[in-house]
């Protein structure tokens, strides 16, 4: 009988714990980035696979959520560079949001849609800053851009979101 050499048990336990803790938030992050549930699931799986292989390289310089978020956003970037990804019409509307059992809050969905409609350079910064709670320094390191560029993009994104939100509110009032 062959002996299958595998990673030590503690690593398996650790990755299992990480997946149970962070799978959902990373899935939401990747979905908001990619606009596609199947691709988002792929990205999350790839994220944890990379994390598992690099667990021994994680020394706690950042918090684990930040570390995973950085891996995830780069997985999303890789996927979005694929040719076919660019060919598919990925326009997003409220109707495309995953069906949920909770009561819909239209104002919330409007914001989410506007975040997902941001140009990708702005979207990734917004998702990391607001959703993954990273600071501008961590985002700069993750995206390999300057902190100033992160701040600029955040500023532009806020401007776009605010304008879109007030439009949504106005149209709601008119309707």
């Amino acid at each position, binding site marked *: 009988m062959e002996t299958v050499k595998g990673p030590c048990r503690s690593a398996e336990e650790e990755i299992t714990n990480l997946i149970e803790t962070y799978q959902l938030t990373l899935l939401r992050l990747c979905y908001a980035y990619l606009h596609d549930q199947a691709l988002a699931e792929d990205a999350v799986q790839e994220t944890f696979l990379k994390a598992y292989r690099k667990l021994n390289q994680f020394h706690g310089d950042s918090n684990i959520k930040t570390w995973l978020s950085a891996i995830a956003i780069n997985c999303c970037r890789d996927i979005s560079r694929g040719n076919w990804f660019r060919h598919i*019409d990925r326009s997003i509307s409220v109707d495309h949001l995953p069906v949920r059992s909770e009561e819909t809050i239209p104002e919330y969905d409007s914001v989410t849609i506007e975040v997902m409609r941001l140009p990708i350079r702005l979207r990734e910064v917004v998702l990391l800053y*607001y959703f993954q709670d990273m600071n501008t320094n961590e985002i700069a390191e993750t995206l390999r851009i300057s902190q100033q560029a992160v701040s600029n993009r955040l500023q*532009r994104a806020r*401007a776009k979101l605010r304008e879109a939100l007030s439009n949504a509110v106005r149209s709601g009032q008119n309707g």
Partner: protein
Amino acid sequence: MDEKRKMQEILNHSLSGLQENPFLPQRVIAQAKGEEPMKKRISFSVIIIVAVLLIGTMTALAASVEDINAMLYKLWPEAARALRPLNLSDEGSGIRLDIISASLTDDQLLITYSLTDLEGDRLSEETELDPYAYNPTIDSKYSSNRLLYYDAENHQAVFASYWEYLPVSLPEGVVWGEDTGTITFRINGLMSPVKTGVDLWLLMADNAYPAEPASVPVANPGLETIVASEDAAKEAEKHIPEVLNPENNLHIAVVEGIELSGIGWIDGQMHVQVYMSDWLKSVGITNTARYTCFISLRDRQGNEVMWTDEFMDQLLKDNPYYIWGVNWRNGGEEQWIEKIFPVQPEDMDQYMIYCEIEDRLTKNEELLNSEWIVSFPVNMIQTE
């Protein structure tokens, strides 16, 4: 509640329909283990490694099914033992699908196959399958399709497709323990996009052009802005710039369906107007343009200059906002795109107005809607 927490609450609520996959830990661990040299399972990543070896070692590629299986055996006997050679084909639209080999274990399906263009060179290293259109399974939890190599001489592309599924969601038609189970491998579309580029400034060179300013002919055009603040963004929306009069279209053909309407200066800014006559169309399940033109400002070495953060910061140094793009449609499939760049006529020897043209359909339209199907019994490839 602070801004961050509010945004987290909003996104979490709107995306609460996404559910965790309880089997993900096992899947990740199993996939990681798959790289171990003594593994029993077939690992797609190892297949890719084998593919790299194949590319490196095959000088004169033998395209036959037997030769590919023989090479796999030489390079990776475990895989070759698991992969059962198959000799099944389907042909359509001048493309032949050959199933080279396949393997089915308890929760994984691996198929290697080739596509050969019998009529021309419609395949390439860029060839892709619509990921939603190749599908031998239902409810697969993970799937991947990779081009292993492309043999230009024989117009042949070799792929490996891999699916992972739970025993409770086996491929449709597969019934364990019954010889009647079959796997149907189906490809519903191929695309091999071709990228080229052209300097619009050179196309424009000898054309006299009036550069007559005009109002945008629709009420709410799309604006692409670079802003320094939220207030600046609001302000920018109130100042829709004048554009080159679209009535003065020079009709300089860039590629079918795309014309350079004109290049001229308004208020000291360079305006580039492009007219697209068939903006979006449905081909099969894909909404796409036949050609697309991504316009960018590049230096003479081909490097994009407009989108460096340094360039944008310089743009905003003395201005709260910069509007660099205006686009509008006429309600149909026609679209006008106007880009506005902060460059002067005398500087144009430093720049290109680069239009990256992606040809998505000409070479492939028939293939986007073609279908290749091969079915074979499960017991031909079942290994465990």
